[in-house]
C-alpha cells in the first residue's frame, strides 16, 4: 500500500512538473483524454482491488465462529479484564492472552467512550456505554506488549494504559489460576 501510494504521488507531482516545463509535449494529449484517463480510468484501476482486498481482510477481523472470549471493561481511567472460561478470573490493568490462538475481546464501558487498542495486535475497537463490541485478536509469540485507550476520555486519558502478557497455553492457564492483580515484574 505504501509503495502504491508513493508511486501515485510521484505520478501526480511528475505530471505537474511535466505540464509546467514541457507543455508542448503534454498538449499532445487532448483535454478530454486527460480528464478521462486521469479522472476516471486511473481511479477505476486503483480503487476496486484496494476495496476488495480490504473487505476480505476486514472480514477476517470480524468474529463469526466461536472462540474463547475475554471481557475488557473500561472506566475512567482503568481497564478490568475478565476471563469467563477460567472461572471468572479477573485482572486489573493487565491483559493475559494465549499465544497463537484467536480470542474475542468483548469490550464494554461503565462511563464514557473509551477504545481498546494494542498497537502490536491489529485493530482497535471502541468501548461504548450501553453497548457490547467485540474485537478478534490473535497474539504471536509469548512476551509482554502494551495496550492503551485510544479514544479521548477526559483528564487522565493519557495514562489509561494497560499491560499485555502473552503466554504459551500452560502459562496462560497458570497465570489465571494464581490470581495476579499486579503486572508481573
Amino acid at each position, binding site marked *: 500500500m505504501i509503495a502504491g501510494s508513493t508511486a501515485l504521488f510521484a505520478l501526480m507531482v511528475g505530471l505537474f512538473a511535466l505540464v509546467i516545463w514541457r507543455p508542448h509535449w503534454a498538449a499532445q494529449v487532448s483535454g478530454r483524454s486527460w480528464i478521462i484517463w486521469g*479522472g476516471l480510468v486511473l481511479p477505476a484501476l486503483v480503487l476496486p482491488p484496494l476495496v476488495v482486498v480490504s473487505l476480505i481482510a476486514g472480514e477476517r477481523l470480524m468474529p463469526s465462529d466461536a472462540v474463547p472470549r475475554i471481557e475488557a471493561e473500561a472506566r475512567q481511567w482503568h481497564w478490568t479484564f475478565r476471563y469467563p472460561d477460567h472461572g471468572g478470573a479477573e485482572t486489573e490493568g493487565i491483559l493475559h492472552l494465549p499465544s497463537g490462538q484467536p480470542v474475542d475481546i468483548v469490550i464494554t464501558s461503565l462511563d464514557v467512550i473509551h477504545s481498546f487498542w494494542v498497537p502490536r495486535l491489529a485493530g482497535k475497537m471502541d468501548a*461504548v456505554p450501553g453497548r457490547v463490541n467485540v474485537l478478534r485478536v490473535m497474539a504471536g509469540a509469548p512476551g509482554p506488549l502494551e495496550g492503551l485507550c485510544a479514544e479521548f476520555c477526559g483528564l487522565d486519558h493519557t495514562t489509561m494504559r494497560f499491560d499485555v502478557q502473552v503466554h504459551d497455553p500452560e502459562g496462560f492457564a497458570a497465570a489465571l489460576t494464581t490470581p495476579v492483580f499486579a503486572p508481573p515484574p
Partner: protein
Amino acid sequence: MTAPMPATSPIRLHKALTRIWATGPGWQRLAAVNHSVVGIRFMVTAAVFFAIGGMLAMLIRAQLATPGSAFLGPEIYNQIFTMHGTIMMFLFAIPMLEGLALYMLPKMLGARDLAFPRLSAYGYWCYLFGGMILIGALVAGVAPQSGWFMYTPLSSDVYSPGINADVWLLGVTFVEISALTMAVELTVSILKLRAPGMTLARMPIFAWYILVTALMMVVGFPPLILGSILLEMERAFGLPFFDPERGGDPLLWQHLFWLFGHPEVYIIFLPAAGALSTMIPTFAQRPLVGYRAVVASIIVMAFLSFGIWVHHMFTTGIPHLALAFFSLGSALVAVPTAVQMFAWLATLAHGRPRWDVPMLYIFGFIAVFVCGGLTGVMLAMVPFNWQAHDSYFVVAHFHYVLVGGFVFPMLAALYYWMPHVTGRLSVHRLSVPAFWMIFAGFNVTFLTMHLTGLLGMPRRVYTYLGHEGWTGLNLLSSVGSFVLTMGFALIAADIFLQRRFAPRFRRDPWRAGTLEWATPTPPAAYGFASLPRIDVRADSLSPFDIGQQLAAGEGYLGMARNGWQETLGVDITTAEPDQIVILPRPTYLPLILALVTGVAVLSMLFKVYVLAILAAIAVAGLFVWGARSSGQPVDHGPLPIGHGLSAPPHPEAATSPPVLAMGVTLIADGAFFTSLIFGVIYLWLVAPNWPPPEVIEAGLALPLIVAAGLVAGPIAARGAAAALRGKGSVMPWLSAQAVALLTTLAALVWLIAVALPDPQTHGYAAASFALLAYVCLHLGIAGLFVISNANRLRSGHIAPRRDHDLRLTRAWQDFTALSGLIAVGFVVILPWLVTG
C-alpha cells in the same frame, strides 16, 4: 421621482454613486453592510483566529517535544488541543471561505452587492461575538476540553461539569447561525444577482464551487446545530438524548456530528478548489479545460460527501455491511477529486504556463494535498482504519488534507487577489523564502507524524514516557512546526510591506479573464459604475477593456436614481434582467441584533434563562421592526435600466430575492427537521433501554385540534393572499390566521405539559418533547409573520402588486403544517402502533 441622471463623465458618475453607496467614516463604520467591507472583515478576523489557533499548535508542539514534559498539565493541554481544532475548523476555515466568497462573488458575477447586505453584516457580528465567547473562555481557563468533536457522554453534564462544554455548544452554535445566514445569502445572490446574459453555464467556475458549497452548508450545518441544541438541553435540563441509562444513545451524537463533520471537510475544500480553478487558467493563459466535467465533479463530490459520514465511526462497532458500504463510498470520492486534478493539469498542458508566486503555492497544494488524499484512501480501508484510527497517523492525514487542501490554496489566493484589495502589485521578496519555509516546515512536522502514528502514538495525549520509540520523531515534528510558524510570520511581514510600499497598478495585473478585475482597484463601494452584458463564458473576458467601458457608464444602470442602491436581478435560467434590486443603506440594525443575540447566548451560558427569553423576544421584535420599511411603499412599474430595457423594482417582480431566500431557508429547516426525525427513529430502533416505561396519553381530542389548527394556518394564509389580489379585506384573514396559530399552540403546550411523560425520564419523552417544541417554535415564527404583515399592510408596503410578504408567509405556513403533522404523528401515532 427624479429623472435618471445623465452619465456625463466617469468622474461624475463615480462621485454620484459613491455618495449613495459609501459607508460613513468613524463610528459609522459599525453600520457597514457593503460586501467588500464585510468580506474583508471576515477574512481579517479569520486570519487573526488562524494566528491564535497556530499559537495553540505551537504550545502543543512545545509540550510534546520531549517525553514527560511538565510544561502543560492535562487540564490545560486538553483545553488547548480542543480549542486548536475548534478554532481552526469553525473560526478560521469556514469564515475565511465565507469572506472570500462575500468579497469576490458580486465582482465576478457583475453585480454591485449581494442580495442581503444586512444579513451579511449580521452574520459577521454573530461570528465575531461567538468567536469572542470562545476565546474569552480560553483566557479565563474554562475553555471546552472534550475534543473538537465533543463526544458524549464525555461532554455531558456528568463527566464535564462546569461551563466548558456549554461554551463550545453555545459559542459554536452562534457561529453556525452566521454560517447559515451566509449560505442563504450566497445561494440567492448567485442564483439571482448576475450580469445580464450570464447564464448558469456561463458563470465563472468559482461561482459554481461556491453555489455547491453554500447548498452543502444549507443542509450540512443543521444536523450539528440540532446536535448542539439537544446536548445543551441534556446538560442544562437533564433531557436524556445521549444517556444510555435512560434510553438515549451516545452514538446518536456521533451520527449527528459527522453528518455535518464529513461534508464540512468538503465545504472547506471546494471553495479552495474554486480559487485554484480560477487561478490556474490565469497562469496557464487559457480558459479552464473541462468546465462541464469540473461542474459535474463538484456536484458528485457534494452528494458523495453526505453519504460517507460513518467512515469516522468505523471503530464504534457498526454492522459489517454498513462498513463495506461506507468504505466503498469513501474510496469513490477519489474519482471527482481526480477529475478536477486532471482538469487542472490539462489546462496547464494546453496553455502557456507562466510561473509566479501563486503558482509556487499551487505547487505546494498539489504535493501536499495528493499525499493527504492517498492516506485518506488508506484510511477508508477498514482494517487499516482500525489500526490507524485515533493515532498520530490520522493527525498527519487530516493536516495534509486541510493544510494542503485549504491553507496552501488560500495562500496562493492571498498573493493572487491581494493586489485587488490594496490596489498594489505584489513584489516577491519575502514570498518565495516564506513558501519554502512553510513547505519544508510543514512536511518535517507532519510527514514524521505518519510514522509516529504507525508506531502506536495515540492522538490527544499530553505526554508520553520515552521508551516507546516516539521521542526522536516528536522532537523532529516540533522543530518542523517552528520553521512552519516562522514561514507564516514572513508572510505577515510581506503583506504588511505590500500594503505600504508596493507600486500601484491600473487594472488587471495578471491578465486574468474574470470580471472581478474589471472593477476599480481598490474596489469602489459601488463595485461597478455600470453593469456589463456577458455573452460568452465569463472566464474568458478581457477585464481591462470591459472595466473602462463600465466605468464610463456604458453598461446597465450607469446612473444614480433616487439615491437608491440599485443592482440588477436576472431570471435564474435565461439570465435576462427581470428586476432592479434596491439594496438597503448602511444601518446599525445588524450590530444591535447581533448584540442582543449575544445577550441571549450569554445568558444561556450563565443559566439566566429569564434574560435569555427576554433577549430572544427582543431579537424577534427587532426582526419584525427591521422589516417594517423593507421594499417600497408605492408601485413604480418598470423603470429604465439602460440600453432600452426596463425592469420593475424587486418588490414588484415575480421572484424576488426574499422569495428565493425563503425557499433556501426552508431547505435548511427541512434538513434540521429530517435530522431530528432521524434521531427519533434512531433512538426507537437502536438505543439501549427501550421501549420506554410509559408513553404519551394524548386521547383523541387534543391531537385532532392540533392537526386541524395546523391545516387551518395555510388556508388562512391563502385566504389573505387571495383577498389582497382581489382587493378585498385582508385583515380578517390575518386575524383568522392568528386564531388558528394560538389555538394550535395552546393545544400543543397542553400536550407537552399534561399528556407527555416527564421528558427527563426517558429518551422517548425527551425526543417527543423536542418534536413538539419544534412545532411550537414554528408556530411562534408564523405569528411573527402575521404581526409583520398586519403592520406592513397598514404602511402600504404590502399591496396587490407587492405581495411577497404574503407569499413568504404562505410558504412558512405550509412548511409548518407539513412538518407539524409529521412531528405530531411521530409523537402520538408511533407509540400507539409500536406498543399496540
